[in-house]
């Protein structure tokens, strides 16, 4: 795997934006706090991934599913996020079907459409 170290970090500007949206207007955030949160977020990604992967392996499957991620949240004691996550998943699934529907319609109209998976 040829990852550069910075590829395992989340962009600081994006993390800052998330933090600013979470806090009241006019709050200053030190650079160290921002980089700390960015690092914490990266580690959290690994932590969730690892917990979800354990579930996959225990069920003798290979591919990670959305359900595995949801279950992992309970395993790592982050149940408090599960409701928001389920809601978000519903909206996401609806958006994905709407997209597929729209692409399908275009195809029927005889246009050349390339279906690209958002990855």
């Amino acid at each position: 795997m040829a990852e550069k170290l910075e590829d395992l970090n989340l962009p600081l500007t994006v993390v800052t934006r998330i933090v600013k949206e979470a806090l009241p207007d006019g709050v200053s955030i030190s650079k160290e706090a921002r980089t700390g949160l960015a690092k914490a977020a990266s580690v959290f990604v690994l932590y969730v991934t690892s917990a979800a992967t354990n579930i996959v392996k225990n069920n003798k499957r290979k591919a990670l599913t959305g359900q595995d991620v949801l279950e992992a949240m309970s395993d790592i004691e982050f149940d408090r996020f599960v409701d928001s996550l389920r809601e978000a998943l519903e909206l996401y699934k609806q958006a994905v079907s709407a997209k597929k529907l729209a692409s399908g319609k275009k195809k029927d109209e005889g246009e050349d459409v390339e279906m690209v998976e958002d990855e």
Partner: protein
Amino acid sequence: MSTPKAEKDLHLPLSRVKTIMKSSPEVDAVGPEPLYLVTKVTELFVTDLAKRAFKNSKNNFLEYKHIAEVVQEDDTLDFLREIMPRKITVRQFKELMAKKSSRGDESDETSEESSEEESSEDSSSSNNAETQNS
């Protein structure tokens, strides 16, 4: 593209999150749905941690130590303890080591690293050492 992306509510870049996930040894394929959820929950996590840390802060100024405090005091954040230790001054560190050696404590659980602190970070001393509080 006329239809908006399904992931339009996300800030974090999916490709980067995917790279991080795939750096984990046992991960095979990461499809779009689990990728979306991991990205989404990470954003929820950052939001949550920032809000909790902010409660520890004063004067509308959020600093590293406010986050470290939350991490050290919440067991569900144990996985972060090594990367977000509380930071202490060199003097405090020396006092800590002196106490340990006088107790005949041979285990060395502390690590000393000096960090580059911005001068606005710490009003007391400009030399800081990182230590594990366990």
